[in-house]
C-alpha cells in the first residue's frame, strides 16, 4: 500500500520554517550554478552565432583567427571570381575582403581595451547579412568614417553617432550604429579597408576574405578548390566552424563551473540531509503508527524521498526566479560583461540565462534532494514499529 502524494506534500507545508530553510539552501546553490552556467553559455552563444552557414572564411594556412592572417590582393582577386561564389543583383561577386586589427579604444571610465576593428568594403553588408544598420547609415569608403556595433556604442569614449572615435593613428567619424542579432560583430568597429591598412601600415591590404557561396553544394566545392590551390597557400573553412572553434576556448571555464557546482551541491546536500534526519527523528511516533497500520517500508521510503524531491523542486523554483532577476540586474549594472576573446579583443557579452542553463541547475537541485534525502528516508523506513511506538 502506497502513501498518498498528499502525505508528502502536507509534510512540506506542516513545517514551513524548516521547509523554507532547506529549500532556501538549495535555491542559493541553484542561483550560483545558474549564473555561472549562464555566463559561459552567453559567452559561447555570442561567438558561436556569428557564423553564417552559407559563408566561408578564407585565411592564410596556419592562422587560427583573422587577426593573425594576411592575404595578398592578387589572391583576393583570383578567388572572388571562382565558380560558386554568390553574385548580387549587379552580378558582382559576394566576396568581402577584410582587414582585422586590434587597436586600443579608450573606455568611458578612462581605461583602455583592445577592440576588433574590421576594415571592410560596402559588399560586407551583403556577405554578413545579419549585420543591420539601426542608426545612421553605412560608411562611405575613403572618407574617414566608421560604424560601430551596439556593444561598442556607448562603452568607449566617442563611440556615438555623430562623434569622433580615436584609435590607431587617426580619428574616425561615427556615422552609423549596427546590430547583428547579439553576435560578436556587435563588439566591432568597422571602417574602410584601405584606410585601415594605411593607418595600421600593413604591407598586405587584407587579413582574410569572407565569401558567400551560391548554393550548399558550392560551399564544399569552393572550400576544396581554395584549400588545394597551390598558388596562394590559403585555407577556407565554414564560417560557422570558424566561430564554433573560437567559442570552444570558453570550454575550459566549464571545468571551473562544474567543480564549483559540485562542491556547493555536496555542501547543500549535507545541509538538506541534516534537516531530513531531524524530521525523521521528530516523526518517529508517526512513522511507527504508519508501520503499525500496515504501510510497507518501501512506501515510507518513497514518501520521504518524494518529500525531499518536492523540497528541491521548491528550491529550484525559488533559485531560478532569483537567478533570472539577478542576471537582469547585473546586465543592467555592468552594461554587458567584457571578455577577452581569442583574438585578444574585447567581446561585450550580454548575460542571459537560457533554458539549458536552468536544466543544468535543475539537475543539480534534484541530485542534491535525492542524495540528501536518501539516508534519512532509509532510516525512516527501517524504524521498527514497536520501538518507534514505545518511544512515543
Amino acid at each position, binding site marked *: 500500500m502506497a502513501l498518498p502524494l498528499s502525505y508528502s506534500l502536507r509534510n512540506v507545508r506542516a513545517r514551513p520554517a524548516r521547509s523554507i530553510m*532547506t529549500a*532556501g*539552501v538549495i535555491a*542559493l*546553490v541553484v*542561483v*550560483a550554478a545558474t*549564473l*555561472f552556467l549562464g*555566463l559561459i553559455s552567453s559567452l559561447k552563444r555570442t561567438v558561436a552565432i556569428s557564423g553564417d552557414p552559407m559563408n566561408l572564411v578564407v585565411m592564410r594556412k*596556419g*592562422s*587560427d*583567427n583573422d587577426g*593573425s592572417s594576411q592575404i595578398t590582393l592578387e589572391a583576393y582577386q583570383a578567388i572572388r571570381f571562382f565558380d560558386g561564389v554568390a553574385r548580387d543583383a549587379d552580378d558582382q561577386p559576394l566576396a568581402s575582403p577584410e582587414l582585422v*586589427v*586590434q*587597436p*586600443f579604444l579608450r573606455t568611458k571610465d578612462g*581605461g*583602455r*581595451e*583592445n577592440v576588433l576593428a574590421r576594415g571592410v568594403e560596402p559588399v560586407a553588408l551583403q556577405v554578413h547579412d545579419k549585420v543591420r544598420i539601426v542608426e545612421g547609415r553605412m560608411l562611405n569608403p575613403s572618407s574617414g568614417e566608421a560604424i560601430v556595433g551596439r556593444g561598442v556604442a556607448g562603452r568607449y569614449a566617442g563611440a556615438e553617432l555623430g562623434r569622433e572615435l580615436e*584609435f*590607431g*593613428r587617426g580619428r574616425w567619424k561615427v556615422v552609423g550604429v549596427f546590430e547583428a542579432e547579439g553576435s560578436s560583430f556587435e563588439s566591432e568597429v568597422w571602417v574602410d579597408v584601405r584606410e585601415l591598412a594605411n*593607418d*595600421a*601600415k600593413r604591407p598586405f591590404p587584407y587579413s582574410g576574405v569572407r565569401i558567400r557561396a551560391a548554393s550548399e553544394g558550392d560551399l564544399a566545392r569552393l572550400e576544396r578548390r581554395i584549400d588545394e590551390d597551390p598558388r596562394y597557400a590559403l585555407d577556407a573553412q565554414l564560417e560557422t566552424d570558424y566561430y564554433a*572553434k573560437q567559442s570552444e*576556448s*570558453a570550454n*575550459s*571555464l566549464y*571545468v*571551473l563551473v562544474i*567543480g*564549483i557546482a559540485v*562542491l*556547493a551541491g*555536496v*555542501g*547543500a546536500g*549535507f*545541509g538538506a540531509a*541534516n534537516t531530513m*534526519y*531531524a524530521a525523521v*527523528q521528530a516523526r518517529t511516533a508517526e512513522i511507527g503508527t504508519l508501520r503499525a497500520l500496515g504501510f510497507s517500508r518501501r512506501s515510507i521510503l518513497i514518501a520521504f524521498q518524494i518529500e525531499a524531491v518536492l523540497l528541491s523542486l521548491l528550491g529550484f523554483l525559488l533559485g531560478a526566479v532569483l537567478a533570472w532577476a*539577478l542576471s537582469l540586474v*547585473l546586465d543592467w549594472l*555592468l552594461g*554587458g*560583461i*567584457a*571578455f*577577452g576573446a*581569442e583574438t*585578444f579583443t574585447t567581446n561585450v557579452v550580454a*548575460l542571459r540565462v537560457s533554458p539549458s542553463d536552468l536544466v543544468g541547475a535543475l539537475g543539480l537541485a534534484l541530485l542534491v534532494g535525492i542524495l540528501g534525502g536518501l539516508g534519512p528516508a532509509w532510516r525512516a523506513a527501517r524504524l521498527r514499529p514497536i520501538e518507534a511506538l514505545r518511544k512515543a
Partner: protein
Amino acid sequence: MKYAHLVWRNLWRNALRTAMTGGAIMLAVVLVCLLLTMPAGMDAMLNDFASNTRLTVHNKAGIVYSMPYSFTRKVRQVDGVAAAVAWVWFGGAFEEDGRVTFPNFAVEAEHIGAVFPDYPITQQQLADFQRYRDGAIVGRQIMQKYGWKLGQRVTLKSTVWPVDLDFRLVGVIDNERAPHFWFNREYLDQALREKGANGLGIAGTIWVRADDPRKVNTIMRKVDEMSRNSEAETASETEKSFFANFFGSLQGLVTIILIVTGLVSLCIVFIAANTASMGVRERAGEIAVMKAIGFPRRVIFTTLLAEASLLSTFAGVLGVALAVGLTGALQAAAGWSDMLGPLGNFIVTPLVIVQGLFLSLFVGMLAGVVPSFGAARKPVVESLHEVF
C-alpha cells in the same frame, strides 16, 4: 573552561549531524577560498608582482601595432635605463591544440635576465639560453601542464608567422606569475630569412628596467618624446598600469565571481544556523532543567555558542587546507587561459587564507548566536511546560 567537557560531549551526541554540518561548512570554505583566489591573483599581480622599477613601451595605437626593432637600442641609451628587451608575439600553438594555449614570445636572450632579475631563473639556465639558438625558457605552470622536462624538444606552429619552430627547453621560470614561453629572437629571425621573407624588423613591446625607481617617470617621458612624430609613436607605462589596463576588462567577471562567493557564504550561514537551532530545540528540556537547578543564562549561552564556533572553526581549518591542496591541482589542469588571464592563476595568498578562516569563525558565531540567545532567554517554566 570547566564546561569544556560539556561542550565536547554535546558536539558528539549526534555524530552524524555534526559530521555533515562540519562537512558542509568545510566544502563551502573550500569553495569561497577557491573563488577568492581569482580576484586575489589579480590583486597580487598588480600590487606585489609588478616591479616598481620596470616599465613597458608599446605603440600608442595598440599592442598589435609594432615598433621598429631599432627603437630598442635607442631606449637602452636613455639615461637611467639599466636594461631593455624587445618582445615579439609568436602566437605559437602546441601540438594538435591548433590554438594558442599559452603566451609565447621571441625575446633577446642576452637582455632578458637583466630586465627580469626578480624572476627565479638560475644563472646557468640564462647562460644556456644565450648559448643555444633554439633554447626556450618556460613558466613552471606550462611545464607542469604538458609534463615537459628540461632538455626536451617541443615544436610550436606559429599562427602569426609562416614558420614552425622546434625548441630545446633550457630553463624554467620557477613561479606562478609568468606562465610564459620565451625563446631566442634570432632563431625566429633566421627562420624567416630562410623562408625568403624579410627578417624580424619589429618589436612588439619593449620591457625596460630602470636603475632607480625614482627615474621611471622621467624615462617614460623621454622615451615617448623620442618617438614623437615618428612612424610609430609610443606609449610607455609602468608594469602595474600595464597589467591593470590589460586585464581591466575582467572586472565584470570578477563582480560575478564575488556575487557567487557571497551566495555560497550565505548558504553556509543558513546550513549552520539551521543545524544549530535544531540542536537547541531538541535539547529544550535539558536546558530547562539546567536552568531550573541554577545554571546562569550566561553559561548556557556561552556553551552553546562555543559548540557552534568550535565546529565551524575546525571545519574552516580543514577547508582552507583542502583549498590549498586543490589550487595546485587546478593550476596544473587550467594552466593559462585567455578567458581568465591572471584570474586563472589560482594563487592562494595569505589574505585568502585569513578570509577563509574568518568566514568560518563568523559563520559559527552568527549561526550559534540566535538559537543560543533564544534558549538562554526562554523562561524556565515555559520550556519545562513544553517538555513535560
